[in-house]
């Protein structure tokens, strides 16, 4: 492209952004609102996944060891279990540790334990599973295998809880595609219509440019660049609003509700989700302009 044409396109974009500032603000604002809703969905979905991952980390199999087993045997037992392909971690909980933990769990009501012997609770192995095996079938398989190991008297795992969690993970996956797809389509339609209206307002300009012999590319490029600027501005505004919403919710959500696993907190959108929103804004702005121009640009 000749330098004079590049300069022409640049001047047209600057002039339009300056003179039609409110049209651009309105279009970017609509894009921001729509992308905010879509981004809000991504934020909820991402945190829900994080929450489920956190809950998944809490899935453990408890293997109670026989009374009177020697520390060397416990260590060898732990090594044996650690070698299972599904197992991520094995921690030995002695009788004394189990007692202390139980007492702590009872809190102010720990007085009820008075008179009881501290070695009443059995020692155990707390077995954490690999991420891919935090599901009912794998957990049951590991439990089954542990039951046949010499030195282990009993095996327990939260089977009912596992069923609910599996169902919840499945629900979130479906919601991601159905609700996400629906919101994505709504975003496309709303932004597309907004851009179309903005271009309709400049129909005369397009017609006159064509009458004086402007090549189609020279008419389209400034509109597409303006669309990109609007899209990126809209996406940036949406991200800013989402950040404020995130800060508000994080501040307002009391830890005492116990929704989040210990040590976890709400997360803002990750880099890929932020990139997706900005890319979506860019694409909708540029693509929407190009698509709308097809309607007003006479072709031969």
């Amino acid at each position, binding site marked *: 492209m000749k330098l004079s044409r590049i300069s022409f396109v640049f001047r047209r974009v600057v002039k339009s952004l300056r003179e039609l500032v409110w049209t651009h603000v309105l279009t970017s604002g609509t894009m921001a609102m729509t992308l905010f809703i879509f981004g809000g969905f991504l934020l909820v979905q991402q945190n829900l996944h994080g929450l489920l991952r956190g809950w998944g980390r809490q899935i453990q199999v408890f293997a109670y060891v026989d009374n009177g087993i020697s520390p060397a045997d416990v260590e060898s037992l732990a090594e044996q279990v650690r070698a299972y392909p599904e197992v991520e971690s094995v921690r030995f909980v002695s009788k004394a540790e189990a007692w202390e933990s139980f007492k702590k769990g009872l809190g102010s009501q720990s007085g009820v334990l008075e008179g009881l012997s501290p070695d009443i609770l059995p020692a155990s192995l707390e077995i954490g599973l690999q991420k891919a095996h935090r599901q009912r079938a794998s957990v049951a398989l590991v439990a089954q295998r542990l039951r046949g190991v010499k030195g282990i008297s009993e095996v327990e795992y939260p089977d009912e809880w596992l069923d609910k969690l599996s169902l919840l993970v499945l629900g979130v996956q479906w919601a991601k595609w159905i609700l996400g797809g629906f919101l994505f389509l709504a975003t496309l339609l709303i932004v597309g219509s907004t851009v179309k209206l903005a271009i309709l307002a400049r129909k005369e300009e397009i017609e006159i440019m064509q009458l004086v012999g402007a090549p189609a590319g020279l008419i389209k490029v400034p509109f597409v660049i303006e669309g990109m600027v609007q899209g990126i501005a809209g996406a940036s505004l949406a991200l800013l609003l989402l950040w404020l919403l995130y800060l508000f919710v994080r501040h307002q959500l009391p830890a005492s509700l116990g929704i989040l696993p210990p040590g976890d907190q709400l997360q803002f959108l990750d880099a890929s989700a932020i990139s997706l929103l900005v890319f979506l804004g860019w694409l909708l702005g540029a693509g929407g302009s190009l698509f709308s121009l097809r309607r007003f640009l006479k072709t*031969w």
Partner: protein
Amino acid sequence: MIKLFRVSKVYPPNNPALTDIHLHVEKGEFIFINGPSGAGKSTLLRLLFREEEASEGQIIVNGRNITRLNGPGVARLRQALGLVFQEYRLLPNMSALENVALAAEVVGMSRKESRRRAFHLLRELGLKDKHDARPPTLSGGEQQRVAIARALVNDPILVLADEPTGNLDAEMAEETMRLFLKIHEKGTTIMIATHDTGLLRRFKHRVVVLQRGRLTADSKSAGAGTVP
């Protein structure tokens, strides 16, 4: 300069606007296309700047067949023409100077050169003090002069004007016609569509008459300068 061979234009479903038009216009000629409203004058002009495509026949402009052209071809054709309309068709958010320079810039002329040419033309057309004015603040006659300056900025081979005096009072119409004559004197071919027979009497040039889409008279065959 212009050759039309058996040109017809039919709008769907079956409304003939032009039927079997034969017309030759020489380089440097000044020609009026006359006829009542709906006679096909504007359609003829629209075929020449390829806003419309002929349903039948062939159209040659400056030695080039323009009957079938693609997008870039239409753009190139229009860059070589000067177009003037009854309703001026200026961009209201641009100054007179910018409106004129725009037509030069879209053909690839530098900004500096486009503005220099636009400024020169506006001064020549008596709009020396109005180059920064936006069209809505100008009178009808002034707006038409800006439109004429825009039509001339690329040194066109042919100027096509569709009812250029239609929105002007008698005095302004006269002045605008004198501008066209001045342009014609420099060798530019001019074709003006008008229903105003008074103009034809005052400015003696070739007249072609259209009625219901058919070419019914041509003063060239009856002797130049006479109104058929």
